[in-house]
């Protein structure tokens, strides 16, 4: 049997379905893995051992519900769960327990998943503090965020998949720096109902997934997607069968590349080289690379940042006046900044968003693009001891942030390592509501490469004893 730390959702599902493994056994193994790894990586805020085992026991005695039946999944600590506190990484919400599950969590449970714990995030997903979580590829390095625990837990096998949210890159960034697959589906595809509003900019926010493989991303997305009338942003669109065309390949796919924005002085040379190699691989697989220009993207970070700051500040106006000292200072300053922005700037940001959306849509149409491919981040991870969150977390997301403005699906897949051995991500950006093509391209690349089969060396050295 594959060691647990190396087990993905699809392989575990096969074992569970065949009876070679029970949900209780898998849950117990995952809990042991958590127990051994948590003192080192700190991915969880709360582990729901008893409820998880109780659920697993019940699942072992019920008919198979599908590929998530009995699969242990972690969720970011901003998804409300009826059986554990939801604190969004902040003292403001210390001890807060909601009486209902978030929409995405409810769908996970309906699909038979075992919610194993709540995972560490930046305070209110703002990226202004340094979380306790460590990157298993090098414990001195940033694990990404704001879904910090999600990427790490998947990378070391203390969960088989994780739910996160992505307002500017908060799923794709941790995926890129932990060597996992991070999928931000199209805007509105997955319900935001039951997530903490104060940890969100609603017009930019997306629920997403962190998994070991693209196939696992398809399985997890399938379970949580679909219209939710409790979420005003939820899209009323048919959810396709994400697994159907997964293996269909990418012959004759037209993939846009835009070096005018996704290269240049911001781009780390190791990242640039790995992504260029990935482009060649996509070409060898039959795709056609189409050079494009997207000049309006120079407005993406200013516009998205302005919108994010303003939308977050609105949610915190009362708390910050009444309980300012319960925030970390960095988060508080960011929220104060958002409250000071002039209306004219916010209005210009929304016009810029419309401009970017129109230009991207027209380029996709004119060039008949199936997707756009870019580096996920301009750099790999950075040393925690040198990190200045107020500056550095923002500097990592110029390539991810535009797609929160446009609402297009975007996924990060592992595509190499820097010279010091830190993971690098390739980003695939699809047409609106077309996660299928994004997944198909990612799967075609994954099938021909071995990056997703490489495991955190620090983890392997230290965690061999819990590989089951």
């Amino acid at each position, binding site marked *: 049997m594959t060691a647990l730390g190396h087990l993905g959702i699809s392989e575990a599902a096969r074992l569970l379905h065949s009876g070679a493994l029970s949900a209780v056994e898998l849950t117990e193994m995952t809990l042991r893995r958590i127990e051994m790894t948590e003192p080192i990586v700190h991915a969880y805020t709360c582990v729901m051992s008893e409820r998880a085992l109780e659920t697993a026991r019940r699942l072992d005695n019920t008919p198979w519900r599908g590929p998530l039946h009995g699969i242990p999944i972690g969720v970011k600590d901003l998804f409300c769960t009826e059986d554990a506190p939801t604190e969004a990484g902040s003292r403001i919400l210390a001890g807060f327990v909601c009486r209902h599950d978030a929409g995405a969590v409810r769908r996970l449970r309906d699909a038979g998943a075992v919610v194993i714990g709540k995972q560490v995030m930046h305070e209110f997903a703002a990226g202004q503090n340094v979380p306790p979580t460590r990157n298993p590829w090098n414990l001195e390095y940033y694990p990404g965020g704001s879904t910090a625990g999600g990427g790490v837990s998947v990378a070391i096998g203390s969960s088989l998949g994780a739910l996160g949210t992505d307002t500017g890159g908060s799923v794709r960034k941790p995926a890129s720096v932990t060597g996992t697959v991070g999928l931000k589906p199209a805007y509105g595809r997955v319900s935001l109902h039951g997530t903490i509003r104060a940890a969100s900019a609603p017009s930019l926010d997306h629920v997403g997934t962190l998994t070991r493989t693209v196939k696992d991303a398809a399985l997890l997305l399938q379970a949580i997607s679909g219209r939710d009338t409790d979420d005003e942003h939820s899209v009323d669109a048919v959810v396709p069968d994400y697994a159907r065309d997964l293996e269909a390949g990418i012959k004759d796919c037209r993939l846009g590349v835009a070096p005018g924005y996704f290269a240049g002085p911001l781009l780390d040379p190791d990242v640039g080289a790995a992504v260029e190699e990935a482009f060649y691989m996509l070409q060898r697989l039959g795709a056609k690379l189409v050079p494009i220009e997207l000049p309006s993207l120079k407005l993406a970070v200013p516009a998205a940042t302005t919108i994010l700051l303003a939308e977050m500040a609105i949610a915190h106006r009362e708390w910050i006046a009444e309980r300012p000292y319960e925030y970390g200072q960095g988060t508080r300053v960011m929220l104060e900044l958002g409250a000071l922005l002039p209306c004219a700037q916010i209005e210009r940001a929304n016009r810029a968003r419309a401009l970017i959306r129109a230009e991207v849509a027209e380029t996709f149409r004119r060039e008949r693009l199936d997707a756009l491919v870019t580096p996920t981040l301009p750099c790999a991870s950075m040393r925690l001891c040198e990190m200045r969150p107020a500056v550095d977390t923002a500097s990592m997301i110029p390539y991810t942030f535009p797609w929160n403005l446009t609402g*297009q699906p975007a996924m990060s897949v592992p595509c190499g390592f820097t010279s010091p051995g830190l993971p690098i991500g390739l980003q695939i950006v699809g047409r609106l509501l077309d996660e299928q093509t994004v997944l198909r391209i990612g799967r075609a690349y994954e099938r021909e490469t071995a990056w997703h089969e490489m495991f955190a060396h620090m983890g392997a050295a230290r965690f061999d004893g819990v590989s089951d």
Partner: protein
Amino acid sequence: MDDWNRVEVVGREDTTLPRGREPEFELTVDDVARLGKLASLHLLEEDLVLLAEALARHLAMVAPLMDADLTQVPLDVTFEDGA
């Protein structure tokens, strides 16, 4: 307050955010405190230096947005007719 009254931040020096002109902003903590009053915010005194720096960085970063000619762009933030 005099010791830290004047905060100078050069936009590009302290940020790697993309492109655009490179304006220099000088903001004092008094400027920021005054802005807070205008916005009916009670800003903590210990935040004013950091907030002045953050505001200066933000203003530098949004310079391309404020310079752009967006007068002909309609305000439309729906997603239905996107890419």
